């Protein structure tokens, strides 16, 4: 167990360094110059624009040679400094992420977890009811195949504009000041519901289909047949099948949870909901190196931590991993 963990940790650390280095390099390979973009709309005398350009280039440390910038970046990183955003100038990147991330987490975590739980239960249930399966499966396929953008706009249009039951923009009313009160919490939930629903619905189908296929596969597997011929009750067989079918779903969940930090770009655009996704999109369009780096740093951390947790969870839920560890040491 200890050796297993040590090996894993070393691999994760190496991956982290390589990923963060790539995270630093890739934005800088984009054509164009972010500082020029920043001052492109300044209406002033050319001399001043030139002076300002020099000043900003220096302020962002971009007058230094690249290798120096790279070491400055690591140095700043260890001091908890992710730099200043160019698009949302002059806000520190860390402040921006801190401001935007909670909106994403409150939206995506419940959507992913609930759709995962409900999808798995429902998929497993449908897999053994032939009639239900015939009816529900096509529905799931349609839902999963629906372009999310279209579904989002449709929901927003129907429930937001036509029926006017839900708001279509913002995380809370433009007319309310955030406070710890029922009125605000209800207002927040009112705004939260449509984006949540759209994410939930779109992911539900995928999980359910995955589970249904896995269950059918497991029920056809040799061990199920064997149990069946041994006269084991179907309930028991189904429980074994469910356990085995769950493994790939857990891996899928980990991947999903790892990237939630990028936010839900489409959701944020369709429902004009604040969050990291929109910021990241703007940052990429305008080559905001520091904001891109900052966002992806959290993605890297998210993916690594999620995988690490899954590695540990697997030790408990997958006897094969436990066995291989035992065989190893």
């Amino acid at each position, binding site marked *: 167990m200890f050796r297993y963990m040590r090996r894993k940790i070393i691999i994760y650390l190496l991956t982290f360094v390589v990923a963060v280095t790539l995270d630093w390099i890739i934005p800088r390979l*984009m*054509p164009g*110059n*972010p500082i*020029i*973009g920043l*001052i*492109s*709309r*300044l*209406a002033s*005398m*050319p*001399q*001043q*624009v*030139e*002076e*300002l350009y020099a*000043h*900003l280039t220096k*302020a962002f440390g971009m007058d230094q040679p690249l290798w120096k910038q790279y070491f400055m970046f690591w140095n700043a990183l260890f001091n908890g400094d992710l730099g200043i955003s160019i698009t*949302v*100038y*002059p*806000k520190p990147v860390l402040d*921006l992420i801190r*401001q935007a991330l909670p909106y994403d987490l409150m939206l995506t975590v419940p959507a992913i977890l609930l759709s995962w739980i409900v999808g798995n239960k429902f998929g497993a249930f449908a897999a053994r009811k032939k009639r239900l399966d015939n009816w529900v499966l096509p529905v799931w396929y349609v839902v999963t195949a629906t372009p999310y953008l279209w579904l989002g*706009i449709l929901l*927003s249009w129907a429930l*937001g*504009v036509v029926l*006017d039951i839900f*708001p*279509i*923009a*913002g*995380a809370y009313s*433009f*007319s*309310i*000041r955030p*406070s*710890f*009160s*029922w*009125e*605000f*919490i209800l*207002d927040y939930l009112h705004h939260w519901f449509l984006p949540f629903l759209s994410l939930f619905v779109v992911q539900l189908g995928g999980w359910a289909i995955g589970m249904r296929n896995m269950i059918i596969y497991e029920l056809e597997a040799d061990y199920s047949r064997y149990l069946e011929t041994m006269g084991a009750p179907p309930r028991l067989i189904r429980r074994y099948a469910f356990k085995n079918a769950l493994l790939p779903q857990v891996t899928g969940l980990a991947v999903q949870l790892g990237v939630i930090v990028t936010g839900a770009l489409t959701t944020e*655009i*369709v429902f*004009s*909901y*604040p969050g990291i996704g929109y*910021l990241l999109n*703007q940052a990429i*369009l*305008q*080559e905001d190196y520091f904001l891109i780096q900052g966002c992806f740093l959290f993605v890297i951390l998210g993916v690594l931590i999620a995988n690490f947790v899954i590695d540990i969870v697997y030790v408990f839920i997958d006897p094969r991993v436990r066995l291989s560890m035992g065989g190893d040491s």
Partner: protein
Amino acid sequence: MKKLLVFMVLLTVLLGGMAFAERYERSETIYCGGGLWGPPANWNPAQPWAAVSGTIGLIYETLFTYDPLTDALTPWLAESGSWIDDDTYRVVLRDGIEWSDGTPMTSEDVKFTFELPAYFDGVHYTSLWEQFESVVAVDELTVEFNFRNPRYHEWAYQIYQLPVLPKHLWENLSVDAVLTGSNEGNVIGSGPYLFETYDLDRMIYLKNENWWAQDLLGLEVVPKRVVYARFASNNVVLGMMMKGEELDVSNFFLPGIPAIKGPYAIHTWYEDEPYMLSDNTAFLFVNTQKKPMDDPTLRRAMAFAINSNEICKRVFENMVIPSNPLGFLPIDGWMKYYSQEAVDANGFVYDPSMAKKMLDEAGYKDVNKDGFREAPDGTPFKMEIVVPFGWTDWMESIKIIAVNLQAVGLNAEAKFPDYNKYFEQISTGNYDLAINNFNSKLSVTPWTLYNWLFADIINDRANSGNFERYTNPEMLDLVDAFNEVPMADVEAGKAIMADVAEIFLRDMPAIPLWYNGMWFQANTNVWSNWPGENSDNQSYPTTWGGTWQLGGVMMLTKIQPK
């Protein structure tokens, strides 16, 4: 565990029940959109390109305001301002203006503002400051600007652009705070609103109950709060407008307004086409340093080949109108310098057969029979037209332009690079054709247009205009000469502008296409008396950053709760 949970829930109920949320009274709040494109982060009036819309206009104010509808440059913080001799401009401040921290505004503040570049090296109006021999605070309220070589047009523009800053809060700031700081925590101005709060997608201004104009001008802004919202897409804005009560003013370009205007009672400036006022001119820039576009005949032929009418109709649903051949906005401040003679002699209209004839005569012929004309020396060429990806109206426009050019035998293709790539291409001269309008916006003088069209190129970068890289010294001299004509001497200015027009039409370094609109849609459910052609609220309906002093503030003093 369970006990803890119960306890938490109880605590939430108790605390939550006790606190009341603050909700802004609907009838006292105006919701605006269209000038906020990212999370609010900068309220620094010395960085107008980055400051949140309203920083200048709602909080910090200018000496003068300019009304493009009546071509009136009106004293605002100033009670009066005039040239007392050829080189001296005297400003007298209104008596009784206070900063929102209670300190009186004096001539020292004005002097400090215009001398800011002396305190902080690198302020964006250093070149203006360099024109001063001296700035003298004559008494508490009077300031005299002594010029070395006055540029009257530039001055007329700057006195309604530069916000007056409170000296007592600014003189001890660091250079970094002024040039690159956000100014958060120091947002003290003199204007009708105060900085209240902000979040990722909104900026909220609270009425300044002690605004000087209430006593001195009898003006009062009506809404107690201005909530400036950011929206992530135009679809959402359209939905907000249709919901009717959630967004009062939109300065977004929204396709489809002509269709939904009637059914949803959406107010626009004009009741019928073109619905919108004109705000700036979209030009097709031609890279004059690249072959074969360095040939004026080719550029002129393209002007004849492009069908601006079709663009206005198909892309903008006739919410914009085609430009005149000089790119002059249809406002008195510019049209009084319009040279009809030059246009009659050398202007252009959409006429593909004329374009073909010009190209034939200049030797552009399809020698290799690939369907497109070659340059007179026989080399084939293809022109790429660029606009930033995602700017859908421009993207559609250049598709039409490409088709128009192909129709007269010129090989042209529409391309959509990302914004930064686009800007790098046009500022470094690495492009063929591009649409741009960044500083063709309406102003007190067409000098601003030419100052942008023919800006100096420094270190081979055209960062502030002149993307076409036009370097005709004759033209530059004329523009400088125009700048040095007193504003009152319209005839002398017009004579110079006639020469400018003649060279412009002959060389055609940039082709004026259409006027982008002052996009303005208002909901009439909560507020009424919106600006419009038939309204007594004759204010230029803008809430865009840096333009509140053109009419946005006045609009807020004249709307009425319903």
